[in-house]
């Protein structure tokens, strides 16, 4: 049985659990960052991404309802996160739809659940399942630390490319800019809550496991986007020239 970790050790362990399966390593992400995608590919991404992040406030609401009343700060964080997703400024999904429209697709296509892949549906379902069934601290670890906290590093890499290589305007890519600020706050606050309340060996180990699974789910989703929409246009060998270890990493994922 592992020992109970202090906050520094536990934080490092959480970061390592996520790092190994970062979605930055997916071929879709590499193709995006290297400017190889076209607007139609990015439109497909938006049509799928909507169904993953669109219900984020719903996921958090399930966690909020089950979070013990005595964890006031954690509950307040969840409530603030929900508020910011939906009504703190522009609704985040509206900004995603703005980007989608700039890619050539439509609001109707984006919100239509028939336009997501089975893998996206799987990621969305996993998020709901975690929110509804896991211990609420473990759920925060999975959804906020494991998934949401990854967003700033992903978008930091992808957003300059959207302007410089894909020639989107600032307004068209606002969705990505805002997440660099808000998700940094949300991710870090998620860490703080998990570090404070995962105070048994068992809880810490469950948090680590769900972070690993969450990062793996996101990598799976992003990888599927490549195979479903991009592979026919850009062979994996071309992606491998940018990032030689993609194929090996993917094989490991598919075998996992």
């Amino acid at each position, binding site marked *: 049985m592992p020992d109970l970790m202090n906050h520094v050790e536990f934080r490092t362990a959480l970061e390592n659990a996520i790092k190994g399966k970062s979605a930055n390593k997916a071929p879709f992400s590499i193709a995006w960052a290297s400017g190889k995608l076209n607007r139609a590919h990015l439109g497909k991404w938006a049509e799928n991404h909507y169904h993953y992040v669109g219900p984020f406030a719903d996921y958090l609401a399930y966690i909020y309802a089950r979070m013990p009343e005595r964890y006031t700060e954690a509950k307040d964080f969840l409530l603030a996160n929900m508020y*910011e997703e939906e009504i703190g400024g522009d609704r985040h999904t509206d900004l995603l739809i703005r980007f989608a429209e700039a890619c050539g697709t439509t609001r109707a296509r984006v919100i239509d659940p028939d336009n997501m892949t089975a893998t996206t549906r799987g990621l969305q379902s996993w998020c709901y399942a975690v929110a509804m069934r896991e211990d609420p601290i473990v759920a925060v670890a999975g959804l906020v630390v494991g998934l949401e906290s990854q967003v700033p590093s992903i978008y930091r890499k992808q957003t*300059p490319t959207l*302007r410089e290589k894909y020639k989107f305007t600032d307004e068209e890519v606002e969705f990505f800019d*805002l997440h660099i*600020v808000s998700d940094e706050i949300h991710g870090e606050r998620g860490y703080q809550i998990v570090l404070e309340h995962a105070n048994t060996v068992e809880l810490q180990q469950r948090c680590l496991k769900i972070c690993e699974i969450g990062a793996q789910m996101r990598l799976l989703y992003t990888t599927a986007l490549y195979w479903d929409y991009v592979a026919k246009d850009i062979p994996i060998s071309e992606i491998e020239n940018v990032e030689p270890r993609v194929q090996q990493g993917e094989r490991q994922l598919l075998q996992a």
Partner: protein
Amino acid sequence: MSSPGFSRANASCCRPDQVPKVTLHRDGQAYEGEVAENTNLVVKAGIRQFPFPHLRYGCGMGKCGKCACHVLKGAEQLPEPGWKEKKRLGSGLDEGYRLICQLWINHDIELEQGEIPGEPLTPAIA
């Protein structure tokens, strides 16, 4: 073209080899703290570190204007305002206001936070 979020001011000024020092004036009080380079003060406040709880902020996306501050010192080291600041602050930019959520700090800076500017201070720039 770069966004305000990615336009990092270059070298820290005034105190080489030291991390940026931030002074925030609000409600007649002055609050001082040091932050790491490339720090967004709204992010810091959001995670409950200095300048929390003194810095007022809201949406974090350059829209509500709650984080707007008058830059007393260090303005020349900041990147040019992005489209969100131009749209939200209008002529307030000429008066020395900036949206703190849109800035990554790399140098010493002194800020004053008063009332939330109107929306916008002048007609929005197209």
